[in-house]
Structures are given as C-alpha cells and as structure tokens.
C-alpha cells in the first residue's frame, strides 16, 4: 500500500506564471532524500506515490525563494498540497520576472520587494523614451518601428512583447535623468521586456524569453542552486533543436560546471546550425579550450579550433547573453597572450568586442551597454533626448492596449486614500456577507481583509473595472470557498470523532417556530442563502450576483425563487 502526494500550486498571472518551472524534492522524516529533485511546472503540479510516513516537500523557485511543507501520507491517501506563490511578487505585472529572478532591491525605498517603486511617483515616468534597432548584415544597425508590438502597463511596470525571430534586436532606453542604454534582445519567438522604476532616477529592465525553463536556469545560476540548475539543464538538453536560445543558456551552464560529457556535440551544433547566434560559437570555442586543458585529444587542435570559433563569434556580432560577452573577451585575451606571432584576425576580434566590455552592465542577463549608437558602445553616459528623434516612443505613452474608462464611482486621485475610503464603505457589508456564508465571525474578518489586500495589490487594474464592488465580492467569495474546502479537509483529517459526534444530532430537532427572518435564511441551502443575501442585504442586481457566483443570470433568478418558496414554508 502507498499513499499519493498530489502537489498543486495556486498562483496568479495567467498562463505565463503557470509555465514557471520550480524544483521539487522530498525528504523523509529521517531527513534522507525520498525523491530526487525534479522540475515541475506550476500549472501541471506533480503527483508521486510514497510509502506511508511523514515527508518534507521542498519547492525551490529560480528567484532563490523556497517553500517547505510537512505532510503525512497514509495508506491510500491522496494528499493535496497547495502552495501559494502569489506572495513572491508585489505586483502581478512583475510576478513572472520576480519569480524567475532574484529580487533587485530598490535601495532608495526599502521594503519594496518585487514591487519596485511606482511610475506615478518618480519624475522618470514623464520623459523616458524607447527605440528599437535591428541588426543588419556587416554589424550595422537600423532603427525600426514599434508596429505590432504589444504593450501593457500599470503604475509599476511597462511590459513589451517582441517577436525577434532570428534577427538581432536591441532596445534603446533613455531619458532626462536616465542614462542611455542598449539592451540586447534574444532572437526568440517571444521576448518580454519589463521596464520598472528603480528609485527616483533609474530603471530596471528585465528581459525574458518564453522559454520558462531557460529563464529558470538563469535564475538558479544566479542563486547558486546547483540541484535546481542541474535538473533544469537536463530538461533543456532535450529541446535544443527547437529552441537554440534556451540551448545556449544550457550550454553556458554546462561550461561553467565543466560538464564536457553532457555538452558533447551540442556546442558544435549550436555554432553550425545557428549562424545568427554568436553565443553558439562562444560556447563551442570555450568547449574546445576546456577539452584542450583536460587533454581530451590533441590540445593544439582544440586550441586552434577555439581560436577559429571565438573569432567567428566576434564576426557574428555581440553575444546575446552577458555570460557570453565575458567568455568571448576572456577567451580572445587568453588566445592573444598565447599567440607567439602577430594575429590580425585575433586583434580585429578583440578590437571589435573590447569596447562592449568597457561599456557593459555586467549585472544584466542579456548584454546591456551604454553608448550613443548600438554599434558604438562608450563609457560616457548620455542623457536627454537624441538629436535624431526618429522612431522614439515615449515609454509611458507608447503603443498600448486601450484602457477601459474609469468607473465614475472610483475617484482617480490618491490610491491609498481611495482604498481606505473603499474599505470604510464596503468593509462592514463584506464581512456580513462572508459571515453569513462561512458561519464564522473571525474567518469572515480575515477573508475580508485578505480580499482587500488583493484589491490593493491589483488596484492599478481594478480601478478601471466597471464595478469594483462586484470584483471585490467575487474575490472574497473565491477565498471563502477555498477556506471552506481547506477547513473541511482539515476537519475530516484531524477531527473524525468530532465530525461523527456532530452527525449524531440534527440541528433541525431544536428548530424554533419563532424564527427571525435571518434565522430562516440561515436554514436555506448554501447557494440559495448566498443569492438571497447578495440580493436583499447587499443590494446587488441579479446580473451582478451572477458574476459574483459565476452562474447564469437565470440561475440566480431560480435560486431566489426557490429561496422565497422555502422561506414561505419556514414561516408557515
């Protein structure tokens, strides 16, 4: 006999967040490994048969966060574990990048974990501009339009979604107080760029591809999570043909861990199959250096191949990833020091790449550098608006999805004051509604507060909702249902005797004919009770109740009708 561990995740952020891979492992009560680490996508969860016993489940996020939970598996048990990842990011718009990467703290505003400062506060919101460049043949760059680029924004982030295909793209950003910079975009089908304020006069720019596993590997590498990185790299190995960018990230990892056996022909293939990707040649070049140093085959042949590959990489352009830029210049310098004679090709490669290393932001995941032009990196920081204003797009006013009109009842001024007013206005009614639903005072208050907390987090979005009150009730209802489910599971697991005792007596035995209306409502089935409460006490319209309860409008009418009939019976 064995029980089953059923790991599910609750998260926000839509399909993007659902594809986030996390590393899960399980240890037994002796603290020895019960299940080896494995990669699990949030949306898919994970099931594992285990011998009866107590286990510790560890969930490791690429950002370095870890969630641990003890559970007990009994014969034939089916133990769901729900892990809430919503707390990892302060804002939904930043959630995926925050879960993927270690948090960059904003030193000027402590405690803004993952949330960043608001665009609405700093001056930078007003004058930041962006511009796209595309790499042409012969390392030349051309400005291109933002046509077809989707953008979303709230007070905390602006997010662009690019489809770079197989061409080099850079995004240029600058402003009155923002130094110009060029951010390399991976040549991938989907590239998300999230721009958020960092303090009063700087921006944080996160670039992620749609390869959640590759991005997770970058996160694990940053936080030293060896097991996480190992498991993720293994997964990337299996998909290298269809996703060379992800494969390149896996290649950098294998180079760093000197895992030459697993790298095998991968480096050569990356270099040969994808000539538009300088990173492939960098990886292959360093693979040869490591093989030469390990004396696997003829060292001279390997060092010769390394020279050819690294020169080839520089001819192809600047690597996409910062790791590649570092390896390229390090490798070229080692080769140059080793060369006994003049080597014009090596010198040309170094002359091309060294200015990028001087101007590089080594903290960025993709190559990011200062300068006046994508082909001219420079140490000198530039501010303001370029003389050539062609194709400049204001960051906050660029192409965007149309905004919904603001709800008239929600004033568009200070957010905190508005939320506070909403809390005062709606809080007591919401608690009453939840109390009726849950039959528990404390729970109702807790869930009401949690609902308001979610409202405050998502305020940038909800403030434009046509009916924030209905939105709030919907969220509260979901929380309440979750809590009821959780409670019932806990109750069944931990208090079977109490439950049996409760079944022994029927509350209707003590029914008192002199019911108040409210007591009579309390005797209704749950769904009827809820519909009646929302209609008569909360004054919602039937279509609003339908939205909150997630049923058809006609169902609401039926529930109300059945409730009236039942109330009439009770009053008779």
């Amino acid at each position, binding site marked *: 006999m064995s029980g089953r561990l059923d790991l599910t995740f609750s998260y926000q952020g839509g399909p993007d967040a659902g594809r986030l891979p996390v590393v899960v492992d399980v240890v037994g009560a002796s603290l020895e490994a019960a299940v080896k680490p494995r990669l699990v996508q949030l949306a898919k969860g994970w099931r594992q048969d285990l011998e009866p016993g107590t286990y510790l489940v560890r969930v490791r996020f690429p950002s370095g966060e870890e969630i641990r939970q003890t559970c007990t598996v009994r014969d034939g048990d089916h133990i769901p574990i729900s892990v809430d990842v919503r707390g990892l990011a302060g804002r939904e718009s930043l959630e995926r990048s925050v879960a993927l990467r270690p948090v960059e703290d904003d030193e000027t505003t402590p405690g803004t974990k993952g949330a960043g400062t608001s665009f609405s506060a700093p001056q930078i919101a007003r004058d930041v501009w962006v511009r796209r460049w595309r790499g042409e043949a012969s390392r030349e760059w051309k400005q291109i339009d933002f046509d077809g680029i989707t953008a979303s924004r709230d007070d905390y982030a602006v997010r662009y979604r690019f489809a770079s295909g197989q061409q080099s793209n850079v995004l240029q950003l600058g402003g009155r107080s923002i130094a110009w910079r060029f951010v390399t975009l991976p040549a991938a089908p989907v590239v998300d760029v999230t721009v958020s304020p960092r303090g009063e006069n700087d921006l944080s720019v996160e670039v992620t591809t749609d390869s959640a596993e590759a991005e997770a590997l970058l996160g694990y590498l940053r936080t030293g999570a060896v097991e996480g990185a190992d498991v993720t790299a293994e997964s990337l190995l299996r998909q290298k043909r269809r996703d060379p960018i992800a494969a390149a990230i896996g290649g950098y990892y294998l180079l760093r861990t000197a895992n030459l056996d697993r790298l095998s022909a991968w480096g050569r293939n990356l270099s040969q199959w994808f000539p538009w990707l300088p990173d492939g040649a960098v990886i292959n070049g360093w693979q040869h250096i490591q093989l030469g140093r390990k004396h696997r085959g003829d060292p001279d042949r390997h060092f010769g191949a390394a020279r050819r590959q690294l020169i080839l990489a520089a001819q192809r352009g600047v690597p996409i990833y910062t790791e590649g830029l570092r390896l390229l210049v390090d490798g070229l310098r080692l080769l140059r020091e080793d060369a006994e004679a003049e080597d014009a090709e090596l010198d040309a490669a170094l002359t091309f790449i060294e200015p990028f290393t001087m101007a590089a932001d080594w903290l960025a995941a993709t190559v990011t550098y200062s300068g006046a032009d994508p082909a001219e990196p420079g*140490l000198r920081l530039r501010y303001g608006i370029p003389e050539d204003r062609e194709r400049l797009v204001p960051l906050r006013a660029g192409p965007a999805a149309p905004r919904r009109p603001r709800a008239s009842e929600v004033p568009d001024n200070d957010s905190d004051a508005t939320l506070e007013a909403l809390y005062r206005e709606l809080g007591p009614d919401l608690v009453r509604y939840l109390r009726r639903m849950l039959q528990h005072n404390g729970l109702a208050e*807790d869930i009401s507060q949690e609902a308001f907390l979610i409202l405050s987090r998502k305020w940038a979005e909800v403030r434009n909702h046509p009916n924030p009150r209905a939105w709030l009730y919907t969220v509260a209802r979901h929380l309440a249902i979750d809590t009821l489910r959780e409670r019932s599971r806990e109750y069944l697991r931990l208090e079977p005797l109490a439950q049996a005792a409760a079944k022994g007596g029927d509350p209707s035995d003590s029914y008192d004919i002199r019911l108040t209306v409210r007591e009579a409502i309390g005797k209704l089935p749950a769904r009827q009770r809820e519909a009646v409460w929302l209609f008569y006490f909360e004054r919602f319209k039937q279509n609003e109740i339908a939205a909150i309860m997630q049923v058809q409008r006609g169902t609401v009418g039926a529930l109300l009708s059945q409730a009236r009939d039942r109330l009439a019976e009770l009053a008779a």
Partner: protein
Amino acid sequence: MTLTVLDSGPGPRTHALVIGIGGYEHLKGGTGTPLPKLLQYGNLGQLTSPPRSALAISDALQSQELDWQVPLGTVDLLVSTAPEDPDPSGDGVTFEPATRDAIQTAFDAWWDRCNANEENVAFCYIAGHGLEGSYPIVLASDFGKSAGQPWPQAFDVNKTRGALTANKAQTQVFLVDACREVTTSNVEVPDAAAPPLRPPKLRQPDNCVYELSIMATSRTRKAYGKTKKPSYFARAFVEGLHGGAAVKEDGEWWITTGKLADRFYRLMDFVGADTHAQRPVPSVRRTFRLARLRSAPPAKLQFACRPDEATRLADLAWQQGTMNPEHRRQRSPEAWTVDVKPGICYVSATFTGQEKYRDCINQDVIVEPPLTHERVLVI
C-alpha cells in the same frame, strides 16, 4: 603569516589559506601617507570585520565537530588589523600585515602545498576591501603605497581563480568576502592593472574536478559586516560548517560543497544578512563531501499560528518523540523559536475559551538545520 600545521602525515590533506585585510596604511584612518584623490577610490577606510572574519573561518575549519574527509593539513592565516581593533583574537597575538607581497608569498607557498597531491583540497578565503572594474579586485593592506600606481598593491580575484584550476588539487574552495562596488577610478580605468596572484594561461591544465566558489556579493554591490564582528558572509559559512549545510546521507551528516552553495542564501538569511542588498554568488562544479559531522547538527524551529493574531491567544507546545517531555510556554504574540534535533517535531496550539479558533491543533513538522519556520493553521 601564521602557518598552523595540524597534520603533516603522508597522504592527501586539506590546505587552507585564510586572509583578512582590515588595516589599510594608506587609506582613510591609516597610519601611512594617505592615497591622493581617495574619493576616486570610494573614500575607503579601515575595516574591523575582515580580521574577525578570517579568525572565525580559521576556528571553524579546526572545529572538533568536523571530521574532514581529506584531513586538515595546514591553515595559513594572514591578518592585517585595523588601528581601532588591534587585537581581534583577544589573546594578544600579533599578525604580519597582509601586504601585497606577503599575500603573494603566502599564496605561492599554499599553491605548492596544494599542488603536492591531486587528492588534496585547496581552501582559500579572502576578506578585505574589494572594488569592481571589468573584474573583481581585492586591495592589499599597502594599497596606495605608490600614489601614482596604486593597482599593483591589489589583485585580480577572477584571474586568480581562473589560474587555480591548474593546481593539482582536484577539490578547490575559493571564497571572496569583499565589496564589488564600482568607483570613479574603475569607471575611468575599468581594466585596472591589478595583477592576479597567478595569471591564467590558455594552455594550463584543468585539474579541478570539484569546485565551490562563492563571491560574497553580486556585481556593483557591497558586502556587509558589523563593526568588530565577523562579516555576514563569514558567519553564514561558519554556520554552514556547523551543520547548516549538512545533508544526511547513508545515516551520516555531511557538509558538502553542493549544499553549501545550495543553502548559502538561507544561511545568509539565518545570520541576519539582508540578502536583497547583499546577494552571494555561489558557483559549483560537482559536489564533494568536505567533512562529516561527529554528531547531528543543531537545528532551530520557529513556530507561530496562522493567522498571526491567533498566536497571542494560543498555548503553544512542542515535543520530539513521545518519550520526551512536552515543552510549553507562556502566551506571547511573538513566534516561538526553540532548539531541537533535526527530524520530526510535534507542535500544538491550544485555545481555551476562544470560539474563533479550533480548540486544539496538532501538527508534525520536519525540522531541517539550521532553521525551519512553521505556521500552524488554526482556523
């Protein structure tokens, strides 16, 4: 240089080089001629933490609790004390200043010791002022001796690490506990001519099989330590050696390079570091069992109620094994932190006369070193 020879017998040994640079003769507060244009170098001054960190690391390596898989052979301690903390060990020991020349001499001698046997473990810890140009640089205690050419009294950490793979010691641990801020001087001269302690070569052999490298902080960031205390990084590493990075395998507790890297974030948190401001950067090449713990490592359990406000109304209790006594405490709104053995703990929260919460909630918790947090759901 203070070389402690612990085991000079035949066979492979672990050789440690531990450097803590706190006194800087030519920086602010130093006893020598101040370096001109100090502001360009970040207006750097004296440090009291690195000597204490080096001593803490040295002591931890020699802990009786550790049974090194490759026996500890030597510990070479190089410490440069700050004027305001001249006796960091507290026993009147004087140390030779960690000048660039002294560091080079110590490094070369350590290199040779490590190079003597391929099964040796090479352990290097360096703490002091650090700067970041294109690569991280650590300043020796005589940095600024030559006002016009200060960089020769510093060394390139990255290249030194790159060269180390040529050493025959197959297991290499390399720890750098220094800031990585970019100063004006580094912006003007990103490739500062700070020579590595040994230059890497293209054709050098790569003998490293097991590697653990940890930079105390990420690029452009500071590394922190309290005045006259070991740094957060050093404390985290020591905590790791004490069992915070222990993993139980085949019935024994092992400190491994993989777990040290894997848990370093948590260890930094555990010792109170702000890991958002100071983010360590570990790097690992295969994992290696460094030492076996002679007894189970200490662990802490911190538990409270969920929701938080229930904690103050609850009678909390914990117990390990049914034969052991149950421990209770006075009611308090704070979470309760207790010292336990790693493994299963039985915790409970009891409410008397509180209709808001269930009467009594019991729960098993598996406690891992160094610290496990648990919030008991009471609704």
